[in-house]
């Protein structure tokens, strides 16, 4: 059957996350970006909503089975509040979800319960590399098998919370195939930049460079490894979902502003030039929302073309969010360019999606 409405449980989750996004994340977004920091209390409050916990089976301390569709709904709502805040709250899943998807039983036992049952803690993941045509399937960071262990060499960028991380998953090229490796805080040869990355947007999320020089690490899934395609598809779907939230936020601000702002004796929303821009933003957003939902549903149901759908949703949603957030600024006119107003940050955040793959996972 086709069906386009969240179930009751999902709706309750959307409502709870939506409340947190609107009442907590949104009001904090501007100051967090300007001061390059998120209040820890804010992150903890989001963690207590239990998104990751609800995606983890009881055997590992959680209370549910992972559903990409449910997570997509939650990520959109969360990102509606603030992208940096949303990514920070969900950051532990960059470590836990790949273990859930591809880890060995020992790895699941070792890490999952600890993360799920504890307070928010900085576990993270490192995928992105500093090159203009960065490709997750052709990484420059290398992994070599040496006996039972693997040795990593290379450099990763934009790794959130790396400085305090207990452990992180580093993705590396193992004989031409991308694989994840678990690297512990104390590993020899692991060095983390002292300074945070300075980016165009999402500056409230503390991100670091991570250097690996002959770092010994454990392969995700043990000797037989894991299906990186599944992890990549889950990352792409999460990015697409976050893009929906950012676009929805910009559309929401622009719509309200256009209904307030007077010009030539009417509200500017009453002018077709502006009204049509808003209509097109809404159509684009809804189109990409459905494409993302479908990709997540395919992933949940093990459909053969799930990875392709995830790629299409990610590509489409990345374009959509740029278009929508650009128009958000445009509709505000000169005021949109002023950092006091929220739409300029949304536009900076909107630009990042194509290159910030790997900062979220469903």
């Amino acid at each position, binding site marked *: *059957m086709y*069906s386009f409405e969240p*179930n009751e449980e999902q709706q309750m989750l959307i409502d709870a996350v939506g409340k947190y996004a609107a009442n907590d994340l949104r009001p904090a977004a501007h100051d967090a970006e300007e001061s390059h920091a998120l209040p820890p209390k804010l992150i903890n409050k989001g963690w207590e909503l239990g998104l990751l916990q609800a995606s983890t089976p009881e055997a590992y301390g959680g209370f549910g089975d992972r559903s990409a569709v449910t997570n997509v709904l939650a990520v959109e709502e969360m990102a509606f509040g603030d992208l940096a805040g949303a990514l920070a709250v969900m950051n532990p899943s960059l470590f836990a979800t790949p273990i859930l998807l591809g880890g060995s039983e020992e790895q699941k036992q070792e890490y999952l319960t600890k993360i799920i049952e504890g307070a928010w803690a900085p576990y993270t993941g490192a995928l992105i590399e500093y090159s203009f045509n960065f490709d997750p399937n052709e990484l420059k960071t290398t992994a070599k098998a040496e006996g039972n262990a693997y040795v990593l060499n290379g450099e990763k960028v934009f790794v959130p919370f790396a400085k305090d991380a207990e452990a992180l998953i580093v993705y590396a090229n193992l004989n031409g195939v991308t694989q994840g490796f678990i690297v512990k805080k104390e590993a020899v040869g692991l060095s983390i930049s002292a300074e945070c990355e300075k980016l165009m947007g999402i500056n409230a999320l503390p991100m670091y460079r991570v250097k690996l020089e002959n770092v010994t690490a454990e392969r995700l899934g043990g000797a037989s490894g894991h299906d990186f395609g599944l992890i990549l598809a889950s990352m792409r779907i999460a990015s697409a979902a976050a893009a929906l939230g950012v676009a929805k936020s910009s559309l929401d601000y622009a719509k309200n502003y256009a209904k307030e702002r007077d010009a030539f004796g009417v509200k500017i929303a009453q002018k077709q030039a502006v009204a049509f821009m808003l209509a*097109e933003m809404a159509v684009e957003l809804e189109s990409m929302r459905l494409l993302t939902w479908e990709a997540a549903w395919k992933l949940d149901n093990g459909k053969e073309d799930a990875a392709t759908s995830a790629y299409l949703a990610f590509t489409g949603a990345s374009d959509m969010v740029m278009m929508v957030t650009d128009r958000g600024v445009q509709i505000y006119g000169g005021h949109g360019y002023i950092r006091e107003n929220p739409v300029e940050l949304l536009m900076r955040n909107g630009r990042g999606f194509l290159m910030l793959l790997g900062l979220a996972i469903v």
Partner: protein
Amino acid sequence: MTIEFETPKPIVQMNAMLKTVAENMMRSTSREMDENEHAIPWDYVEFMHTAMRSMGGGGGLTVTEGKPKEGDEKRPPLGYQKLASQIEMLAWGDVGYYLITPGGGLGAAAVAAAGSPEQKERFLARFNDDKPTYAAMCMTEPGAGSDTSAIRARAVLDEKTNEWVINGEKIFVTGGDKSFNEYEKLGKGFIVVWASIDPSAGRSGMRAFVVESGTPGVKVTKLEHKLGIRASDTASISLVDARVPFENVLGKPTVEKTTTGFKGAMATFDATRPLVAASGIGVARAALEFLKEKLAENGVEIRYGLPRTKLTSIEKDVIDMEIQLRSAWLLTLKAVWMADNKKSNALESSMSKVRAGDVVTKITQKAVEIMGPLGYSREFLLEKWFRDAKITDIYEGTGQINRLVVARQILGYTGAELR
């Protein structure tokens, strides 16, 4: 409710059958019908009529619910979703042919939406008779397109004979010829004419009248020559003192200061816009599949999964086309799913039409561009699909009118607040 994207079994089965029809009865003669505008592909017309009757779907392509077998679990309604899927598949074959699939079309839809039970019985039963039968909707006039409040056709009640006397000029009547003129192989059809019974009342004075084929005073004055969809006739119809029985008015014969008469027409559009979207999407899918086939023949493979910076220009285009096509189809499915589940879908219905109108023109334009001389040549159907697709963004409300509907919906504005 839940979120699900599994194509329902009845739709999968139906599509498999329709694909055979599309390949064997439509594609095979598509070009010939395009080059001989207004010729009628009788094989297709008669086959479809027989097939639809034997399946119990009298009335042509309409919303039908399959009869549940005994012991079957109750399943959610599927009628509009099935219909949209049928239309998409037939349009994939040939959208001009789809448009002349026998049945009541928009004319019958108006009767179904605004007619009394007695009127439905009287006007709609004929579509299940032996011969294929048509009905059409006459709304547009030379001076009234999207702005339907500018309609000038007039209906006056002659109290002596208890007949309506209608005068007016209607244009762009899809299927007007087959609905009104008599053909040996066709049953007796009708046209539904929109006219005012009280011009001072504006839109609330607007009514729809069923005018039977052959009614004196009514004439098909012209068949348009078009950019595409040439198998479908687009008629001009003039009405000079045309007399129709009092009982042929749809809705109340008197004017109250409400806009219900007009809302009837608009409600019809909520139901039909996603269906128009579906028909355009079928054409665009045909073009995209053809393009990918030709590219594969020429050794061009689309490498999904690469970052944009590593894709060729053709790969980027094809990937974007796939994103556009699939998302437009999902919007359309959502709109008809809402209709099936009795959810108000004015917003989604217009959204699907905006999106489909946009993407099917872009996809077919780009496909012709990529194919170069092969795209421009009439050897292949691609250039025809480019011409056929364009109508999607025009009829049943232009892309602009539908943007206006979407904007009013999302802003919470009335027609007066956002003109």
